């Protein structure tokens, strides 16, 4: 039996669905249903592949490879190993959540709205699956386009300026990385098998130290903007605040993760020497981000903006762990990223729900929501606690692994990380207090969660609890690829 092109199916199924959307443009309900079905299909497909993968049908990695632009050694090559699989399933899950979270943003032009969400799923899946660096760069640039329109057309407030800011920040990094990718191709032209963009072959390339550092800097700048690492995080609070709920979910749940994933998958193995050289700087930036984000988050007046800043802190911690040189912390970083996608996804959906019900998300009109809407309150508190890394919930495992890992390699960094995590508690508790407790400051009614929102949050909650109690399977999936990368970057480990 000839094997199905599973990976291409994962990538292009949402895009095909997006192309069908315009046919339904007159009918908002049909659009919703179709988009939901498409997202369910994608999740089912990913679950099926995950099952087959766990059963060992594919061996260590599932690979698709075809000649694409042979004159330059560019191949259409995709590969799925345990690490990619985690993020691929996560993408499908967040995609489903996006469909569930959108009831108030899609009133105008529903076909375009859902089409853009589906298209962005395609580009993100492409990033997680590409194993040809040119293909990766293509998806990396392409992912900006649907999100740009999603924010610009369906966002709130000063959406146009925010969308431009997002795009220009990302494109600056993306184009510099693009140049670095070209440079890699040029460097590989002298290799025995000619010009080549396969990640595997490029890692074996002998790059001069000086050149390697420049290329690493270009790659990391691009990833740092996406992650976002301070001081290139400026686009994120605005983008999160003005984006529609699904846009925030995609940004926090997927785009930020592409940055962390690409750092692990591409930047580290391609330039191990430069990774060592730049590790202290990246650690400092990540940890400073943790404190900085906490300090700024406390001062925010908008729920979504506060959650946006919390992303900077969490992802900063993940970056510090990724470059730390500890295999334990590296696994923790992967877990933390997945956990962050789930918890921030939940928080952003709930913040979106607040905005839909009250017309604003400012703290001045919130308070007392627990009494008004107990289910909403419970869900909100659950997500806040998961974000604060309560034991038993997903955040805890990741953060614990990172701290243990850091202690082994760098006590100072580990101490700062712990202190930084304590600092995050300040704003998270403030978030819970000002939203849920105290006297209600708005006379508007606040209906409790409806069935759709309950499904959405239950999905995320199951993920959070599962990851918190049984992280083993996920860590097991990531173990082999991470071992390979760690062995390459830190051979003595």
């Amino acid at each position, binding site marked *: 039996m000839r094997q199905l092109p599973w990976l291409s199916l994962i990538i292009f199924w949402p895009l095909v669905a997006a192309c069908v959307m315009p046919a339904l443009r007159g009918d908002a309900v049909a659009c919703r249903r179709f988009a939901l079905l498409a997202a369910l299909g994608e999740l089912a497909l990913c679950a099926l592949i995950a099952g087959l993968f766990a059963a060992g049908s594919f061996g260590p990695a599932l690979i698709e490879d075809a000649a*694409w*632009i*042979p*004159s*330059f050694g560019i191949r259409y090559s995709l590969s799925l190993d345990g690490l990619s699989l985690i993020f691929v399933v996560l993408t499908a899950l967040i995609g489903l959540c996006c469909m569930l979270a959108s009831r108030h943003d899609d009133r105008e*032009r529903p076909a375009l709205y859902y089409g853009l969400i589906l298209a962005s799923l395609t580009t993100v899946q492409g990033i997680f699956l590409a194993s040809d660096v*040119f293909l990766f760069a*293509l*998806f990396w*640039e*392409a992912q*900006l*386009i649907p999100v*740009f*329109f999603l924010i*610009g*057309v369906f966002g709130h407030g000063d*959406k*146009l300026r925010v*969308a*431009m800011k997002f*795009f*220009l920040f990302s*494109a*600056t990094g993306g*184009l*510099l990385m*693009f*140049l670095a990718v*070209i*440079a890699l*191709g*040029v460097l590989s*032209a002298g290799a025995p098998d000619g010009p080549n963009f396969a990640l595997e072959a490029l890692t074996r390339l002998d790059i001069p130290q000086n050149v390697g550092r420049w290329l690493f800097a270009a790659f990391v700048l691009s990833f740092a903007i996406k992650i976002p690492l301070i001081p290139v995080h400026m686009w994120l609070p605005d983008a999160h605040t003005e984006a529609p709920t699904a846009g925030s979910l995609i940004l926090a749940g997927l785009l930020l993760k592409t940055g962390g994933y690409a750092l692990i998958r591409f930047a580290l193995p391609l330039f191990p020497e430069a990774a060592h050289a730049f590790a202290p700087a990246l650690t400092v930036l990540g940890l400073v981000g943790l404190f900085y984000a906490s300090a700024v988050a406390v001062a925010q007046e908008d729920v979504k903006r506060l959650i946006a800043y919390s992303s900077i802190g969490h992802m900063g911690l993940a970056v510090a762990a990724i470059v730390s040189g500890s295999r334990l912390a590296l696994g923790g970083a992967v877990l933390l990223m997945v956990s962050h996608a789930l918890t921030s996804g939940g928080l952003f959906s709930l913040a979106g729900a607040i905005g839909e019900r009250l017309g604003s998300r400012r703290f001045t009109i919130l308070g007392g929501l627990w009494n008004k809407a107990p289910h909403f309150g419970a869900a909100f508190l659950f997500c806040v606690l998961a974000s604060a890394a309560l034991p038993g919930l997903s955040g805890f495992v990741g953060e614990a692994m990172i701290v243990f890992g850091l202690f082994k390699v760098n006590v100072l960094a580990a101490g700062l990380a712990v202190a930084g995590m304590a600092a995050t508690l300040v704003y998270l508790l403030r978030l819970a207090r000002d939203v849920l407790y105290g006297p209600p400051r708005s006379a508007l009614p606040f209906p409790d969660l409806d069935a759709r929102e309950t499904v959405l949050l239950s999905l995320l909650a199951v993920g959070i609890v599962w990851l918190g109690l049984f992280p083993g399977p996920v860590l097991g999936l990531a173990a082999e690829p991470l071992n390979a990368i760690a062995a390459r970057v830190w051979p003595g480990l």
Partner: protein
Amino acid sequence: MSAFVVAYFPHLCLAFGGLLVLCLSMARSVPAGFYPVTAGLFAALPGLWAVAGPQGGSPIACFYAGLLSVIALATIGLLARYAKRRGFAGDALYGLLLWSALGMLLLADADDWIMLAVGLELASLCLYALIAARLDDNLGTEAALKYFLPGAMALAVLLFGMALIYAASGSLEIAASLAAPGPLTAAGLALVLIGVGFKLSLAPVHLWTPDVYQGAPAPVAAFLSSGSKAAAAAALLHVCSEVSPEAKELLWPALAVAAGLTMAVGNLGAVAQGSVKRLLAYSSIAQMGYILMAAMAVNDGGGEAALFYLAAFALMDLAAFGAVGALSAEIGDRDDIAAYRGLGYVHPWRAGVLAIGLASLAGLPPTAGFVGKFLVFGAALSAGYVGLAAFGIITAVVGVFYALRLLAALYMRESLIAHPAAVYATGPAATLALGVMAAGLVGLGLFPQTLLGTIAALFGGA
């Protein structure tokens, strides 16, 4: 004799087609639709000739016959209804178009300095007239004059440069004369490059470009920017590939400065524009900076990269200017960026073509512009122009910005009542042309190997 006919079939077709169209007007009762159909027929023949893979045609002639055939056909398609509605359709329009294409073809495959000058001037003279085709349009007349006067100056500089080269080498053949050593050749070459650079709108001799593009009718601007740029770039590539090492050492630093300046001026200039045609003009200036960068690396794979980029660029500008024409009402062109607000929803197809053209100009995937940038910057890096490439990439970010500005106007702002969204009925030819351009841009972005393989097959042996 027959070998001559086969080798020069495209030239003969274009020349004869132009004549025939002009002669047709002497007949009493020629239906107006006859001119574009005849012109289109003769414009298609060089393309068929190129596809057939003739014996005796040089690779560059083959490539350009195909490319110019596509450009001319698309222009005729875009012009047909446009010109009719605005009352300037006629024999001269289509005849001059074919002859201009003939001039471009001669310019592109000239091996001889005189032929190069003749081709350049034939192409330009016809273009001067085409730009002023709308007699009742003052802006067009002014644009033609603004193109003509500096153009004549540039021709003088070019001819003087050729004279110097001839004086130094005693040969009119491009390859042989450039091989001659000495400062006189280098000085002549510098003047030639300035003359060609004018036609390519390389900074600092680019100043005519925005005015002319703004004044010209949109389909003519599309033809001007895609065809004449492509042909002049072919001449530039030819000259650059034959330059002797010592002249190279002398002139290349200046070319590097010109390339950097062109990219910066084009991209930065576009940001400040409120007029869409001027914005596209500045963006085409910036694209020529990338071409010049590839031309400097012509012997390190830059030639193939530049040819691919030129083909992609021709599609981009035909799509963008064609869509501007198609989005216009019965009078003039829709020019103010504010007048494009919300058009993406009112006219999704025409605005979609403009959006794809802009995305490609900005180098976004999955369009031809993305692959083109990859090739051009790859060539520059392998030739060792690392600083120039880095500078170019940074200016490209600015290029993304103005493309987004127009895209944002199309899709993210509600339309203003002051600017009615009404457009004229473009007719099937223009619709087909726009569709083919958009499909070509995406197709080249996803499957560049088809064109790359063709280019490699044509030039690989040589």
